[in-house]
C-alpha cells in the first residue's frame, strides 16, 4: 500500500510551532511571511490533511516555495521531516491536480527517456550558440534574447559532446585496488563534463578502476520532489537495474542530490515493491560521494603538486545534510600545499539554487544567492570549490551578476589540478 497523504498527519503533529526554523530558512529570510517558513508550510499541510483547507492554487504556490535544503530539518528540536512533508504535498498536488503541461513534457518524455534526453541535448549543444552568447572570462553563457529566463542569467553551455559518450564503459587501470561504478548525474553528463573528467583522472591516479554504465538515467530527484512519483519510480528502477548488474565495490557520485537518491531515497520510494525495495537498500549501502571515497584511499595526498591559490568551500545542501559529508572535501583542500583555505561564513547555507526552484523563482533565488556571494567575497578567495553542479551553476551566475572574479570548480577538479601541478613540476 502506498503511503497516503493523510498518513503524514503523524509527522505534522510533531511540529510544536516553536519557530526555530525561522532562524535557518533561506526563503523566509527573504520573504518574512509566516507562510514561507517551515512552520507555516507544515501548518498549511496539516490544514489540507484535516480538510480545513482545500488543495488550492495558493497552496501549490506555497509548497513550491521550498528549496528542499533541509536546513529546518536538522535545526528542528522535534526533528520534523519538513522536506518529506513538502514532497508528500507536492505528490498530492500532482495526483489531484495534475502536473503542468511543461513539467509533464520534461519529466515524462525527456528525463525518463534517455534517448530523447540525449538527442535533445545533442541538438541543444549545436544550436545553443544562436540564442546564447559567451559570458565573461570565457565562463558560461548569457541569453541573447528573452527566453522566459532572465537575460542576466548566466547559464553554463551544454557540452558539445556528453561526458558518457567520451569514455568507454570501463576505464581500466593496471593492478586496480578498487573497482567502482560512477553515477554521473545529468549536469556532469551534459554540462560540466570537466567535473566528470576530473573524477575519472583522480580515481585513475589512485589506482581505482571506474565503470561508467552507459544505460544510466537521470536519478529522478527533480521529478520526485515535484510530485511525479510515477516517473520517479520508473527512473529509480531503471537505474537500479543498470547498477545491479555491475560487479563493483562501490558506487561513486559527484553530486549530493543524486547520491542521496541512490543511497536512501530509492529505498524509501520503492519500499512497497517486493523486489526493488531490497535491491535499493543493498545498492544504497555502496554509495559514496567522490570525496568520501578519495579520503579513504591510502596515499591520495601523495604526489600532490604546489598550487598557490586562495580557496573557499561551499557545502551543497544535499551533500552536507543529505549524505552528511562535511569534513572530507575540506580534508582534500587542506592536503594541497600552497592552497590557502579560508572558510566562509555560513558555508552550509543554501546557495538558492534548489534545482528547478531557481527556474520557477529566479528573482528570489538570486536574492538568496546574493548572501552567498557576499560571504564568498569576504574570504578573499580566488576559487570557490563545491561538490554539486547545480550549486556551481547558480553561484557562478551570482558571481557574474555582482562582477566578482571568482572561479567555481568541483572538489574533484581542484585535486586534479594539484596532481597535474606535480606532473608538470
Amino acid at each position, binding site marked *: 500500500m502506498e503511503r497516503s497523504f493523510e498518513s503524514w498527519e503523524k509527522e505534522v503533529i510533531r511540529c510544536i510551532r516553536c519557530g526555530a526554523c*525561522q*532562524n535557518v530558512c533561506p526563503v523566509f529570510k527573504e520573504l518574512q511571511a509566516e*507562510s514561507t517558513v517551515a512552520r*507555516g508550510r507544515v*501548518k*498549511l499541510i496539516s*490544514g489540507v490533511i484535516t480538510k480545513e*483547507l482545500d488543495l488550492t492554487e*495558493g*497552496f501549490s504556490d506555497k509548497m513550491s516555495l521550498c528549496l528542499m535544503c533541509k536546513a529546518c530539518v536538522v535545526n528542528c528540536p522535534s526533528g520534523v521531516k519538513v522536506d518529506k512533508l513538502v514532497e508528500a504535498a507536492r505528490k498530492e498536488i500532482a495526483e489531484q491536480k495534475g502536473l503542468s503541461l511543461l513539467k509533464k513534457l520534461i519529466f515524462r518524455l525527456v528525463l525518463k527517456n534517455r534517448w530523447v534526453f540525449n538527442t535533445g541535448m545533442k541538438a541543444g549543444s549545436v544550436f545553443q550558440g544562436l540564442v546564447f552568447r559567451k559570458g565573461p572570462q570565457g565562463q558560461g553563457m548569457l541569453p541573447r534574447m528573452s527566453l522566459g529566463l532572465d537575460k542576466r542569467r548566466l547559464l553554463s553551455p551544454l557540452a558539445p559532446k556528453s561526458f558518457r559518450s567520451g569514455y568507454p564503459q570501463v576505464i581500466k587501470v593496471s593492478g586496480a585496488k578498487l573497482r567502482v561504478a560512477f553515477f554521473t548525474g545529468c549536469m556532469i553528463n551534459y554540462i560540466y563534463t570537466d567535473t566528470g573528467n576530473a573524477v575519472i583522472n583522480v580515481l585513475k591516479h589512485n589506482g581505482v578502476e571506474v565503470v561508467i554504465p552507459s544505460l544510466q538515467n537521470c536519478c529522478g530527484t527533480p521529478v520526485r520532489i515535484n510530485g511525479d512519483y510515477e516517473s520517479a519510480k520508473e527512473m529509480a528502477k531503471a537505474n537500479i537495474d543498470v547498477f545491479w548488474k555491475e560487479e563493483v565495490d562501490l558506487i561513486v557520485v559527484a553530486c549530493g542530490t543524486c547520491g542521496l537518491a541512490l543511497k536512501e531515497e530509492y529505498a524509501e520510494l520503492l519500499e512497497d515493491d517486493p523486489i526493488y525495495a531490497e535491491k535499493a537498500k543493498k545498492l544504497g549501502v555502496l554509495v559514496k560521494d567522490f570525496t568520501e571515497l578519495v579520503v579513504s584511499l591510502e596515499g591520495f595526498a601523495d604526489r600532490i603538486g604546489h598550487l598557490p591559490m586562495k580557496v573557499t568551500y561551499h557545502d551543497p545542501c544535499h551533500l552536507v545534510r543529505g549524505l552528511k559529508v562535511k569534513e572530507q572535501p575540506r580534508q582534500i583542500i587542506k592536503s594541497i600545499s600552497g592552497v590557502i583555505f579560508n572558510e566562509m561564513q555560513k558555508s552550509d547555507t543554501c546557495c538558492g539554487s534548489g534545482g528547478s526552484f531557481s527556474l520557477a523563482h529566479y528573482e528570489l533565488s538570486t536574492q538568496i544567492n546574493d548572501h552567498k556571494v557576499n560571504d564568498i567575497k569576504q574570504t578573499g578567495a580566488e576559487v570557490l570549490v563545491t561538490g554539486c553542479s547545480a550549486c556551481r551553476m547558480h553561484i557562478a551566475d551570482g558571481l557574474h551578476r555582482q562582477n566578482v572574479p571568482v572561479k567555481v570548480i568541483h572538489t574533484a577538479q581542484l585535486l586534479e589540478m594539484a596532481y597535474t601541478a606535480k606532473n608538470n613540476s
Partner: protein
Amino acid sequence: MKSEIIQRLTEIVGGDNIYTALEDLYCYTYDASFVKADIKKDLAGVAVYPGNTEEVSRILKLANLEKIPVVPRGAGSNVSGGTISIGDCIVLVLKRMNKILEIDRKNLIAVVETGVITGQLQSEVESVGLFYPPDPASQAFSTMGGNVAECAGGPRGVKYGVTRDYVIGLEVVLPTGEVINTGGRTIKNVTGYDMTNLFTGSEGTLCVITKIIVKLIPLPEGKSTMMAVFSEIDQACETVSEIIAGGLVPCSLELLDNIYIKNIEEYAKVGLPTDAGAVLLIEVDGDSEILAKQIGKIEQTCRRLGAVQIRIAKTKEEANELWRARRSAFAAVSRVKPTIIGEDATVPRSSIPVAVRRIQEIAAKYNIIIAILGHAGDGNLHATILTDATDLEEAARVEKAIDEIFVATVEMGGSLSGEHGIGRAKSKFITRQTGEVGLEVQHRIKQALDPNNILNPGVMFGA
C-alpha cells in the same frame, strides 16, 4: 475585511508588505502555544508588515477609528497564545523594523528597533565585551519587542533577572495612534509613573512597542559548569535550596527529572545513570579567580546532600558536553509522544520539592506523562506534558491536569506564569492570582489607554 480598509493599509505599508490570501492568513492562526484557533471564526482579515514607527501609528489610528482589532506579532514564538489572530483583525507583524540603532559603550546601553532578533543583539554586544543576559530558549529567533511584551526570562534569570530588569526606556505607539517615549537612557529615572515597567510584559494589550533601550553589563570573564546526579529528586530540590541559602548564585541551575534523564540517555548517550531521580546542571560565571572556589563550594553542598555522581567540566568542550544533555532534552522527549506542551508555573524557590510532588500526583491522577525540567534556581518549573493531540480523550485529561497545576501553583504562593505570559492560554485563571479587584484595576488601565479595546483583545482579560 472591507476592501476600502485593505486599500488604506496598502497605501500605508506598500503592496509588498500586506497579505490577504487565505493561505497566508492561515499561518497567523497559531503561535508556539497549544492554543487552537477556530479557522472559521479566527482567521485574520489582513496581515501587515510596517517598516517604521510612523506606519505603525497610521495603522493604529485607522484601526481605532474603524474599531478593528489589532494583534501585534514579532516572531510568533510566544507560548501563551498572545499572537494568534482573532476574527477579522489586522495582524501587525513588526519583523521589518529590525535594526540595532546604537550600542553605547560609555553609557552601557543599546537602542534597538522592536524586530531585532534577541540573539543577534546578544552576539553584537558580546563582540564588544558587553552582555545582555535574558536568554529565553527562543533567543535565536524571537524578537526584542516580543521579549519585552512578554517579559521573557530564561535559565540565567536566577542570577541576572529577566527582560524587565534590563529595559530602561521604550518608544511605543498607543492604540489611539499617538507615539510616546517612556523612561530614557539613564539608570535612575523617577519622573512620573514607571510606564516602561507597565508596558514591559503587557502582552500587546496596551501599546505597540517600536523602540527599546536596554541596559547592558560587562561580559563575565569566564564560566564553570558542573553536573550533579541524585538518586532522589527531593535531594536535588533540597540541594537547590541549600546552594541559594548558602549565598551562592549560579547563573544557571537547571533540574531534569527521571523521565528526561531516561530519554536523554537513550537519545543522546551522554552517560547519565538512567535510574537517577534527578540531575542538576549548574553553571557559575564571573572573574576566573573565583570560579573554582564557587564550584568547589557547590560541589561540597551537592555531596553533602547525597549526589551520587558529580562531573565538573575542565574545558569548554567538556562544558558543552554537559550542556548537550540539557539541549537535547526537548528532542529526546519529543520521540516519546508527538505533542509536547510546556508549562511554566513558578513557585517560591523553597516550595520546589512540594511543587514537584504535586505535579507528579496530578500526572498520576489523570494518567498522563508529565516530565519536569526547570530553571530550579528561580522556582520556574517547566512541567512538560507528553501527549498526542489526535487522541481527543487524552487531550481532555491533559486539559484538566493543566487546570489543576495552575490551581496548585497559586495555592503554593506561586505564579501562573514565570516567563511565558498569560495570553489566551491562561486568562481564565488570572483572578486566582490577582483577585477580582486586582483584575479590575488592570482592566481600568487597559480602558484608559485603549478605550475601543482594539489591541490584542482577549489576551489576559479573556474573551
